[in-house]
């Protein structure tokens, strides 16, 4: 094995290990995240096209506001947080400037989302893809989830499931 081949093998090994790590991280969002997984129903994800309004590359997790145009030309203003955090992004090569450039205001992106359990236009971003389909800012996730582009509200929580810890009348949670 020559030096070039060795370097290639080494790079593949590193990528493989990082992929393993990423899968492990994504497998336990409930525990790894800033307590947010309870706020969102990550078991019911969906995708949509959206346009970035503002992206904030900050701890403990980046946040993003975006708009999505739905049937009838209505524009929904959403707020969201990202699953990952700046230190993880930076270690994957998504540094602050690169991430902010990739998600500059007005950028059209395909998002994989989970809606908040309170409902409304609030969600957690599980994955982002650019218009060319390439994963950006932390990578995309396999789109084995319903595509609800243009559907008003996207995928909203169903039923009367009470939010965990939500204060109830006459007492603490």
């Amino acid at each position, binding site marked *: 094995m020559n030096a070039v081949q060795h370097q290639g093998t080494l790079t593949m*090994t*590193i990528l493989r*290990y*990082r992929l*393993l*790590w990423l899968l*492990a*991280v994504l497998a*336990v969002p*409930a*525990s*790894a995240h*800033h*307590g*947010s997984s*309870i*706020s*969102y129903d990550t078991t019911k994800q969906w995708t949509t096209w959206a346009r970035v309004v503002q992206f*904030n590359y*900050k*701890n*403990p*997790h980046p*946040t993003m506001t975006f708009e999505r145009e739905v049937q009838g030309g209505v524009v929904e203003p959403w*707020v*969201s*947080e990202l699953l990952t955090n*700046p*230190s*993880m992004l*930076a*270690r994957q090569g998504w*540094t602050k400037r690169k991430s902010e450039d990739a998600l500059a205001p007005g950028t059209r992106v395909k998002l994989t989302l989970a809606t*908040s*359990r*309170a*409902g*409304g*236009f*609030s*969600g*957690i971003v599980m994955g982002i893809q650019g218009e060319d389909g390439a994963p950006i800012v932390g990578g995309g996730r396999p789109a084995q989830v319903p595509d609800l582009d243009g559907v008003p509200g996207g995928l909203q929580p169903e039923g009367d499931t009470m*939010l*965990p*810890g*939500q*204060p109830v009348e006459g007492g603490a*949670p």
Partner: protein
Amino acid sequence: MASMARSTIALPTRSRWSMTCAAVARTLLISALLGVPLVAAQPAAPAPTPGGIGNSDSDTRSYDKRNFSGLWARSPELYGEAPCPECREPVGWPGYGFFGDIPARTEEGQRRMDLNKPARGLELGSAEANARTDLDSGLRRAILPAFGNDPEMRCEPLGLARLITFAGPGAAMELIQQQDRILQTFEWTWDFREIWMDGRRSPNVEDYLPRFNGYSVARWEGDTLVVTSVGFDDRQWIDQHGYPLSSEAVLEERWDRPSPNRLRVQLTLTDPLLYTRPWQASTKVWSLIPKESMAIAGWSGILEDRCVPSDESMFNQVRDRAAGLGEE
């Protein structure tokens, strides 16, 4: 029986040696006749398993067991290093934490614990939380972060036990060892503490200001560094699950380096005001990360991963919206 015991004790050294030789010879003979290799009788090393069991480090190079300096992480894959299964938290426990043999609380301990409202662990009232009665109730009471009161979500100091046991993805630490002390720095919240090895004694807590990371002194027991920490600020949580800690708590850490690329700690918290017995945590293991592997754009080392109150406040607005609070 008494005379037998006396005769055994009184046996001359030469006779005991002869008996030992005979026993070894018998064992070898039987082993040879049965074709059983003697090594088979040795207990096999446990397979590397989450929770600090076994050791996946295959590095056989010689190393200094008393030198802990270096960059250490519990997710070595993130840095392109080989996975470390034993570095992960025990299987079946929610997230990461002190874990281990969780003791019952005293009345005061339970009172303080009930005041703490964690947002991590199994969701309060969920089917999983109700089913996992094998877990302590403290791990089954997570509520929406917007309604919780985790000090981390206000960027308050995490405190020593929580810093050590934090195993969030990618969080790393560095140990810088000198003759008289070890400086331990933590990536998440960019915090640090000193472990003094200059022979000083633990301070009388009453004479000092309490500190989130306490006062740490250490001594060597063989190749194990035994660190004793006292003088804690009792506003901290032991871990993300909201277990309280009093200013009378004593944290003992037993650090060792079982192989070139592994660092391990056994933690025991003694806090009789809040807990009915000492609490031994699950074993925590770190993997050594080469300097060049923990680098971004050629700049190596742990990150300045601070919790900035204004950033946290911005994040919490989004968090609150997810709980149905704030502007729609």
